[in-house]
């Protein structure tokens, strides 16, 4: 039987040489049914063109570095199987809504700043001494925030978000989901410090129920829900004069 092959087109862009991104096409062997899109990129890099640039590390869907757009959809390339595209071809482009650094590598500094701005750490009025042992927390209390703690910062939701696409001042799905993760943690008392950051972030109020973010999230996080819940909280706390202010 003739060897199976697959055509992969990938974005090439070197800011020193190119004025704009272009697609380069590679025809590679599809030698094993277990191959993922990332394997195709690695094949190209090892055997065809060593200059193709992209990020990856864990190849098991947990480090969050290999997000790219595959045939128009934001995907973790280590968890997207070639067999789901073959015999069609594959077009791999960088994640939308981010500046391109090089080839398939995008600039995510903006998110790193936003992450910090929501104070993603436990805030307490009074820290408990280590000698006092752990805070008690039940599995049910963990269930309250569990899904929001699953975020791997892969940026697929930002790539899918129409609001972020128009206005990068919007905190965005993952940052808001992570703020929610801490706000809902029974050990945390920092909600009051975080809410203004979110309420005053441009775009929160533009977010509709579209929920593209939750659809593309590979980890079952529902950022759209976090955003809607937060809106409710912020309006209760800041708009209604007698709202629950703790």
């Amino acid at each position, binding site marked *: 039987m003739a060897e199976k092959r697959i055509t992969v087109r990938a974005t090439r862009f070197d800011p020193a040489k190119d004025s704009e991104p272009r697609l380069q096409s590679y025809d590679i062997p599809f030698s094993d049914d*277990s191959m993922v899109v990332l394997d195709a990129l690695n094949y190209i890099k090892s055997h065809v063109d060593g200059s193709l640039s992209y990020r990856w590390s864990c190849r098991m*869907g947990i*480090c969050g570095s290999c997000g790219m757009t595959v045939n128009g959809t934001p995907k973790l390339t280590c968890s997207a199987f070639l067999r789901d595209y073959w015999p069609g071809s594959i077009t791999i482009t960088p994640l939308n809504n981010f500046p391109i650094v090089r080839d398939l590598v995008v600039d995510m500094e903006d998110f790193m700043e936003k*992450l910090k701005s929501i104070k993603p750490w436990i805030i307490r009025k009074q820290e408990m001494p*280590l000698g006092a042992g752990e805070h*008690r927390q039940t599995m049910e209390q963990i269930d309250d925030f569990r899904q929001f703690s699953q975020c791997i910062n892969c940026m697929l939701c930002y790539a899918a978000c129409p609001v972020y696409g128009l206005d990068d001042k919007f905190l965005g799905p993952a940052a808001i989901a992570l703020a929610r993760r801490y706000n809902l943690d029974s050990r945390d008392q920092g909600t009051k410090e975080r809410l203004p950051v979110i309420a005053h972030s441009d775009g929160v109020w533009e977010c509709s129920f579209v929920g593209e973010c939750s659809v593309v999230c590979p980890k079952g996080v529902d950022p759209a829900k976090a955003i809607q819940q937060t809106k409710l909280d912020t309006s209760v706390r800041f708009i209604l004069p007698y709202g629950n202010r703790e």
Partner: protein
Amino acid sequence: MDFESYDVLVVGGGLAGIRAAIAVVETNPSLKVGMVSKVYPMRSHTVSAEGGAAAVLRPEDSYETHAYDTIKGSDYLADQDVVEAFVREAPIEVIQMEHWGCPWSRDPDGKISVRPFGGMTTWRTCFAADKTGFHMLHTVFQTSLKYPQIHRHDEAFVTKLLVEDGRCVGVVAIDMRSGRFDAITAKAVILATGGMGRVYAFTTNGNICTGDGMALAYRAGVGLKDMEMVQFHPTGLPFTGILITEAVRGEGGYLTNKDGERFLKRYVPNKMELGPRDIISRAMITEFEAGRGFEGPHGKYMHLDVRHLGEAVIDRKLPFMRELGREFVGIDIVHDPIPVRPVMHYMMGGVDANISGATPVSGLYAAGECANVGLNGGNRLGSNSLSECLVFGAATGRAAADYVSSAKAVSANPIEGMLKDETKRIEMDYLEKKSGEERIGAIREDMQLSMDAGAGVFRTREGLENLTKQLGKLRDRFGRIKIEDSSRTFNTELMSVLELDYMLEVAEVITYSALAREESRGAHARRDFPERDDEKFLKHTIAFRTDEISPRLEYRDVRITNFKPQARAY
């Protein structure tokens, strides 16, 4: 010329590095800390750790049993004073992680849960479902964001340690985005660069685990300790090498051969699936050789079976395993057994460091998987490593903070010359090199397959000698390497070639250290020397770099306190 300058510079943004950085500023809030990482910290390979972190938290447990389990597990190659200090600190660190927000799984009374793990005589492994490393890493990383004293250099790749007058005073790093070569100076440098699994072909380690810190220290004249001690985990998924956590067995999973038999009864009858990794991996290979493995498209394998645990337990305690099974194998572990086989997993050896992480070069420290402080000896017990990153990350951070309070400032004078030399080396050897025909990928693959074949679960003199010859040839080929990417912007090919250079060095040290240890101990199993030999080898191997590919080997006695070496039976 001005250089970015810190009191303490941490190389590595994994669990050990971040824990160290926080410890520095908590020890002395006036210190300025730099943290360099070749990937965004939350991408570090700690993120993939699944099973848990060991600590004595229960009244029915004791420091002594945790110490004993660790020392016996190490096949008596651990330094016992280090183990004893470790077991006392581990619970404090686990609680600290809890206060920082780690979502540890809980018992009904709200206390941190523990689960059984291989080689541990009692339940002491704390876990956050089966994504423990992910949660721990994101917790410490997000917590680190609240310290303005910690200044990060994300996606900066360290190529060299700056050593002046026998003292480490910083690093040279390439800022990947701009391609700029920077000298970053500091009164003390902590290496926390993680493991080296990519030296092998079949590994649980991610692409970034290339032994950089080990090679950097080795080049700076520091010895690498016990590098022959390479851990093979019994349960990796065929083809990808993705790990199926030991917690699967901790929660009650069975390992069966093609006759449906729980074959471990022949090897570790009292522990069965909860035996230590080295012994179970050897048992599996032995079964394969006896024709009792399954044959699959990606080689021989065994079954890891959790069907009897039921969906509720699986979803509560092993949800990520179900996800990995679905995504990467196309099975549902609730209804199907998982195909597994031994896979390279962890380096017990590492940069020679003492109980506070200090190396023999002043100002240079090491913590986490890249270091060998003497905790793991010949075989690390599962779930001791995450705890090690916390305990020794913190200890090293504190020691470095103390050291810099009295250390002299770094003089900028010689730095400029060193930066120039290093820049020139990399430009001439790689970026601007015109000749050469060897591809990185080809040399890397040959190295990895050679290491799998020659320095795997079982070793022989013949195999190892053959491997030294192959590594010699790979060195020659490396001299003829050619890179196609001359761009300065995010040049991942340049990173790959520098990593390959590090890995070849690490592979050489593993191979020569393994050749010289003519006994079987822990993970180092020599078919030609099947017995442990305490007379000759109750000693650490320390490898020093020479101008040849073979290192100079020295030996150092293991420190024994309360646990006399005995036969290791389970």
